[in-house]
């Protein structure tokens, strides 16, 4: 008789919860050992929250944010209950009470052996006169929408269709992404941010100033050091607008709130779990209650509450190892966080310790500032290792630098090259400008290994043109791309050695031939000049 599978109930159908179900199935593909149920409050299949700003930008549909295609979960024996929330949990009896958020018919009782809280976070709505913080939902009353769920995102897209002026509250990562998306939809956008520069958690002051300039040059207005105090609907005094703390007003028929998130810890608190900012977990993602675990943005591990998707995914992998016994010793020790702004035309990455001062004696800090071109780089090194970086608009460099940061390998000794993201700037190909200085051993025709010396030798032996050099040395007869260099060499030789120039010369000098190629190159000159058949 097969043993009854252990029942895992995952509360939260977001990116961490759904990933955990997937990871468990990797380790128990036919579901014989673990029955998995996911409970999600939103009425939708699990979706990729990271892609929501791309939806706002109009590049993909909400449907394309779904994590898995239709039928994927059922085919893998993963039960997904959407439109329901866990209203109560009995830790003794190991049951969870589900309450339908759409229909009371969805109420039911679930039994579990392992309970995983992956309840994520909710938008933080600042107090704003004229905005009902509790009544704010995805319908976007009075044109005010938070930017967190796919429904809210869809509503933003709808409102953007008829909006002229949008105000985005918050100049953090999501705020900038939302603003960039709205700009792309042709909406006039103002970002209101209470700090002195945007993305203050990922930038330093100098970099933040460059970022502000980049955002403005893309067409967004950026109001710094201010917050929105009140929302006014269209009335006799004017169109719909927001009022800032200094009393100034901005027209706003769409208000997008992205002023941060708060971990959803209410269920954890009601169970009497240890809760700090998030639900406290150890290296095995266990909470303070037996058989209860937490992952993702609702959890707090070693004082860190994840704000990006990667830690949640890493935690899901470890917890799946622990729960299934695939790797009973698995532990989660943290994720090195790298933030990347996903906004068209802004290339920004930030990682690690970035606030270290340039003159800090313990660190080596390199920086590069080019506000006019929207570029800023700051690299923080400790013992030849990259421990922090801000990379704005430096393009290619980000690839090599993020890998150095992740791997903890020693950085290249050439610090200038490091800033450019290359081990070293590559040596340039031979050009006719430096033909004179080029050593004789330099290979001009790679396809046939013909050196400068060989070409000079052929020239002195009477080959005064490209076809003649080709005939004598085979240079240019492979891919043909050295033709310019051979031409350059011939004209340099003609001007520098008029006395040996074939024009003033007969073929008496044949014993000085330095060619390496004995075979004739008949037909070649013609073939190359005429091109392909």
């Amino acid at each position, binding site marked *: 008789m097969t043993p009854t599978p252990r029942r895992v109930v995952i509360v939260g159908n977001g990116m961490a919860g759904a990933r955990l179900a997937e990871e468990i199935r990797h380790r128990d593909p036919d579901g014989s050992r673990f029955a998995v149920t996911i409970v999600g409050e939103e009425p939708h299949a699990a979706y990729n929250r990271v892609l929501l700003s791309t939806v706002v930008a109009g590049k993909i549909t909400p449907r394309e944010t779904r994590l898995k*295609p239709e039928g994927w979960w059922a085919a893998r024996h993963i039960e997904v209950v959407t439109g329901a929330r866990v209203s109560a949990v009995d830790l003794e009896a190991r049951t969870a009470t589900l309450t339908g958020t759409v229909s009371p018919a969805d109420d039911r009782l679930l039994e579990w052996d392992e309970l995983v809280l992956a309840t994520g976070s909710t938008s933080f709505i600042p107090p704003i006169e004229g905005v009902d913080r509790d009544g704010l939902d995805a319908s976007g009353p009075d044109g005010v929408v938070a930017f967190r769920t796919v429904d809210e995102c869809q509503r933003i897209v709808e409102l953007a269709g008829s909006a002229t002026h949008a105000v985005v509250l918050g100049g953090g990562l999501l705020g900038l992404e939302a603003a960039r998306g709205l700009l792309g939809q042709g909406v006039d956008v103002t970002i209101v941010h209470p700090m002195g520069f945007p993305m203050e958690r990922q930038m330093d002051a100098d970099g933040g100033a460059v970022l502000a300039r980049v955002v403005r040059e893309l067409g967004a207005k950026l109001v710094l050091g201010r917050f929105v105090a009140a929302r006014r609907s269209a009335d006799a005094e004017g169109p719909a607008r927001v009022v800032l703390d200094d009393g100034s007003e901005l027209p706003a028929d769409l208000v997008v709130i992205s002023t941060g998130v708060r971990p959803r810890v209410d269920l954890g608190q009601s169970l009497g779990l240890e809760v700090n900012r998030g639900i406290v977990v150890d290296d095995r993602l266990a909470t303070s209650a037996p058989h209860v675990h937490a992952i993702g943005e609702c959890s707090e591990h070693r004082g860190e509450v994840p704000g990006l998707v990667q830690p949640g995914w890493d935690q899901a992998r470890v917890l799946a190892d622990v729960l299934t016994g695939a790797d009973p010793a698995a532990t989660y020790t943290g994720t090195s966080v790298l933030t990347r702004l996903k906004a068209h035309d802004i290339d920004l990455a930030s990682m690690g310790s970035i606030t270290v001062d340039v003159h800090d004696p313990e660190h080596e800090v390199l920086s590069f500032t080019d506000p006019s071109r929207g570029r800023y780089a700051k690299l923080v090194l400790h013992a030849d290792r990259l421990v922090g970086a801000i990379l704005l608009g430096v393009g290619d460099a980000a690839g*090599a630098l993020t*890998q150095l940061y992740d791997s903890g390998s020693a950085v290249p000794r050439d610090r200038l090259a490091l800033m450019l993201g290359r081990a070293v700037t590559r040596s340039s190909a031979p050009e006719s400008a430096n033909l004179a200085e080029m050593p004789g051993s330099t290979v001009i025709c790679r396809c046939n*290994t013909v050196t400068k010396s060989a070409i000079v030798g052929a020239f002195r032996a009477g080959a005064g043109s490209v076809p003649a050099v080709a005939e004598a040395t085979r240079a240019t007869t492979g*891919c043909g*791309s050295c033709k310019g260099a051979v031409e350059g060499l011939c004209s340099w030789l003609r001007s520098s050695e008029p006395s040996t120039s074939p024009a003033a010369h007969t073929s008496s000098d044949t014993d000085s031939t330095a060619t390496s190629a004995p075979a004739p190159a008949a037909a070649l000159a013609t073939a190359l000049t005429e091109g392909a058949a």
Partner: protein
Amino acid sequence: MTDVRMPTRALGGDTPSERAGVATHCAYCGLQCAMTLTGSSAADLTVTPRRFPTNRGGLCQKGWTSAELLRTSSRITTPLVRRDGELVPVSWDEALDVVAAAIVQTQSAHGRDAVAVFGGGGLTNEKAYQLGKFARVALRTSQIDYNGRWCMSSAAAAGIRCFGLDRGLPFPVTDIGSAHAVLLLGANPAETMPPFLTHLVRAADCGGLMVADPRLTPTAAKAVDGGGLHLQLRPGTDAALALGMLHLAITEGYADRRFIAERTTGFDDLWSIAAQWLPERVERVTGVAVTTMRSAVAALARARDTERGAYILSARGTEQHASGTDTVTAFIALALALGLPGNPGTGFGTITGQGNGQGGREHGQKADQLPGYRKIDDPAARAHVAAVWGVDPADLPGPGRSAFELLASLGTEGGPKVLLVHGSNPVVSAPDARVVSERLAALDLLVVCDFVLSETAAMADVVLPVLQWAEEEGTLTNLEGRVLRRRRALTAPAGCRSELEVWSELARRIGCGTGFPTDPRIVFDELRRASAGGPADYSAVTWERLDAGESLHWPCSTERPQGTPRLFLDRFATPDGLARFVPVDHVGPAEAHDAAYPLVATTGRVLQHYQSGAQTRLVEELSSAAGDMFVQLHPDTAEAAGLVEGEPADVVSRRGRTRATVRLDDDMRPDVVFLPFHWGGDARANSLTHAALDPTSRMPEFKACAVRLEAVS
């Protein structure tokens, strides 16, 4: 003196005789550059490049010097049999009798599968076909595979599952010449097939050449010099790169939504995977900046939208991984998302490596295959081919072991005890080659057909001297699926025989007297019938048509008598005519690096050498230009290991060590070392490589293994 008179110019200049010599194609790679051979003996034979669409009149150093091998003093001209540990000259009859007796004895004692055959991607179509037939009909063994398994198998498997058909380039190579955007994946044609670069000039000049390669190869440098892109990825992260670029194609709005809807299936399933490969995550895995990926996708889309030509071409760097099939599948998905395949002026292809890498993978050298690119486990295919061969379909063996699995089983319990090798040098070219050498040594009898004493031939019990390219007639199929004639310019030295004669004689000696003609033209006519109705249908290709200068790309049948230069324009070769997005994910290299083996080694070629180097190392001009075995690495990496430029070093993996001269290169990734694979003995790169196999194609992981460096005192 010139021979530029080209009466058949409009037909591609491929008629038999030029005024001054014999028109044929190069001895080496899959570009099959056209050349004319002039002279009457090996001593005075000269090579001249010939104008032809593929090479446009160019030749690389290997081609120019190809005649040198005809006069090498290392040529074997008499059969050799090992006696008391030494290879000694014997007569052909004696040698063939030894082989035939061993075959009969071994098969009666241990069964049919105790005799195995290993072929090569350099064999002509006629020989590749006949070798497969010899194995199935004369030896009746299932144990046949070939070195193309280590070359094209991942691209082939991906092409079949996504397009329903595998033809390296489903369009003429000249189509690429007008493209403004070309993305090369693990391809270094500047060294591996230099005249191919003539087709990349347009893209390079307008900044549209893009090269994904862990090294700044000469090809990548050409891209950068022209303002194009070098995507310098960590070895073995290609699939992540593909999925990240696909992600960007969708999220940045570069996808061709209409093409996806009308000509493909399966997008949703793949997207659910690619959607999780956020570009920033891909950047961390691959080391390729998000900006660089975005620019590459944008360049392809721009060229497509302005009808200026956009192509994605893969090669071994991306394919030779234990996840090679999925990796190519992911890049095909990128191409499909951009709407490139199956439209004129855009496309996806793979650049075939070996001389007959295309034809060699179509006619039955592969363990699971019958002629015409048929599958050996398909009852209809078996019935068709058995009828052509005049045998009972039930007598045809089933699928056998793949190349590495076959070699690894030699001399083991239940493994083959006799092996016949044709056109291959696995002692140098096999992954984890130390194991392969041990298995070869464990055989009761190793028979090698070659014209020089390769490292594998040197281990043999019987060596049979065969013909070189300029001494034989036949056909090869180039990288674009065009069938080409190889023509004889010389009579072979007395004592050398064609493999067709070898198989005919062996078949007769083991009691299978008919069915193995020695005239390649007759073999080809049989190949045409055997391939008829198959995916690679050659039935309307004749030597006469080829000799008249016709340009014929397969499929070429009575329904398509003019051949098919461009495939998929109306429909893909799948049952429903739609291309398939196949849900694949990135898995990464099979072998993890750790503190003991902290670096990734990757392997490849240098310009002057071809494959195992058995041939090109004998050409003085090539061997002196290339120098000896080297390891290419960043100066910081060298310094950390205490290595100095020009000095010897040992590269050590969990499987073996290789001695190489240190060559410093500022443009190397500090976590990567590069080794060319053209040498044997202590300098054998494949002593290091990992034989983890792709689950679909059985391609080994040649391109990534964990190593450390040791100074040599």
